[in-house]
């Protein structure tokens, strides 16, 4: 080892040791210019491979002195090298295997998320298109006024124009897992489309086609169209909580809100039977009264003849959670028999949505 060290090598020296012998940068070989240096910078070692083949320059001062070896600084990292790991014992193998299993389980959980968010969409898309084709086939053949309700079988179709012209899903009978995998499901025992009472439909918000993913983007007076074998029923979302008070003079005056009232009875105390009904509401999962004929009231709150024809959509809330339920309630404003319009696109142009 020689003492030809750069000035930055001083840190290797132990403080308190005697100063290193006088050092100078290597003189440049003859016939070459010394490397350019920025003024004020410490001298740098020449870059690139040092040219070796030349008559040896005079040895730098101190070259013939005894080499001084400095002790490494304690705790320094520059010279430390990791010793080769010892072979794993039985315990080590067990720990490594446990780690591998844990990593694998983590990957499985991630994969399950992928399944929930994306793969179920693919499965449901297939089922939905099958159900849709089947429904179209049945409607083409048979135009019975009241279709027979069979569990898990589609009997109507939901369109939401504000979600796009092509937004449509079949509605299956029942809200069990099998029905909801195909698309939105009708709460058994609640009213049918167009009937007084509450036509209630549940749908997934995440995965499985996520038909009700965007329900929170609806605003009051947005249209929801329910298609049956014979008719289009046009519902409009009821006023929201903060719009109720000033409805008639406020948003309710908008032509697009034609036919939408607050359902409140000005003569009755607290607005009458529909005092709890709003266009959007977030409730606990246990609040089954949300789908009652008169929402949030006893089943016999009003005789059937006085009930409004409502449509209620339910989904989980907040997104990715099942802590609460988002409830969207709308009211029937128009019924268009299918022999008056060619198809859904024709209907949209007639109701001013397309």
């Amino acid at each position, binding site marked *: 080892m020689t003492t030809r060290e750069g000035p930055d090598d001083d840190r290797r020296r132990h403080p308190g040791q005697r100063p290193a012998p006088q050092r100078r940068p290597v003189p440049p070989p003859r016939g070459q210019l010394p490397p350019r240096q920025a003024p004020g910078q410490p001298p740098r070692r020449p870059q690139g491979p040092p040219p070796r083949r030349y008559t040896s320059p005079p040895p730098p001062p101190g070259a013939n002195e005894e080499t001084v070896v400095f002790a490494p600084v304690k705790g320094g990292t520059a010279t430390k090298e990791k010793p080769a790991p010892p072979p794993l014992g039985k315990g080590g193998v067990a720990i490594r295997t446990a780690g591998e299993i844990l990593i694998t389980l983590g990957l499985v959980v991630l*994969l399950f998320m992928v399944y*929930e968010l994306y793969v179920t969409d693919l499965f449901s898309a297939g089922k939905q298109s099958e159900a849709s084709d089947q429904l179209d086939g049945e409607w083409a053949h048979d135009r019975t006024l009241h279709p027979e309700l069979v569990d898990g079988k589609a009997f109507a179709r939901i369109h939401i124009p504000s979600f796009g012209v092509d937004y449509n899903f079949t509605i299956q009978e029942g*809200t069990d897992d099998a029905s*909801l995998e195909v698309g939105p*499901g009708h709460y058994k025992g609640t009213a049918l489309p167009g009937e007084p009472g509450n036509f209630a439909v549940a749908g997934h918000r995440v995965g499985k086609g996520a038909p009700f993913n965007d329900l929170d983007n609806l605003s009051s007076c947005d249209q929801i169209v329910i298609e049956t074998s014979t008719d289009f029923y046009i519902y409009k979302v009821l006023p929201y909580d903060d719009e109720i008070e000033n409805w008639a003079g406020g948003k309710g005056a908008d032509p697009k809100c034609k036919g939408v009232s607050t359902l409140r009875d000005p003569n009755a105390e607290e607005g009458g039977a529909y005092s709890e009904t709003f266009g959007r509401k977030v409730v606990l999962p246990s609040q089954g009264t949300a789908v009652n004929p008169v929402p949030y009231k006893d089943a016999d709150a009003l005789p059937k003849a006085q009930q409004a024809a409502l449509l209620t959509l339910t989904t989980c809330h907040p997104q*990715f959670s*099942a802590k609460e*339920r988002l409830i969207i309630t709308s009211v029937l404003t128009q019924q268009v028999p299918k022999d008056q319009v060619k198809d859904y696109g024709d209907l949209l142009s007639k109701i001013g949505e397309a």
Partner: protein
Amino acid sequence: MYAWLWRKFPGPFAVKLTIAVVLALGVVALLMFVVFPWLEPRLWFNEVAVN
């Protein structure tokens, strides 16, 4: 575990790699088509109805 599996695979590197990929895909398919559909209804976060 995985190192042990790797050593158990026969053949040269290419064959071992092929076996490993096929096995991994098989496990993923088993999870996606059998295990997860079975597991899912037993979990709570997919409920959308009120009752």
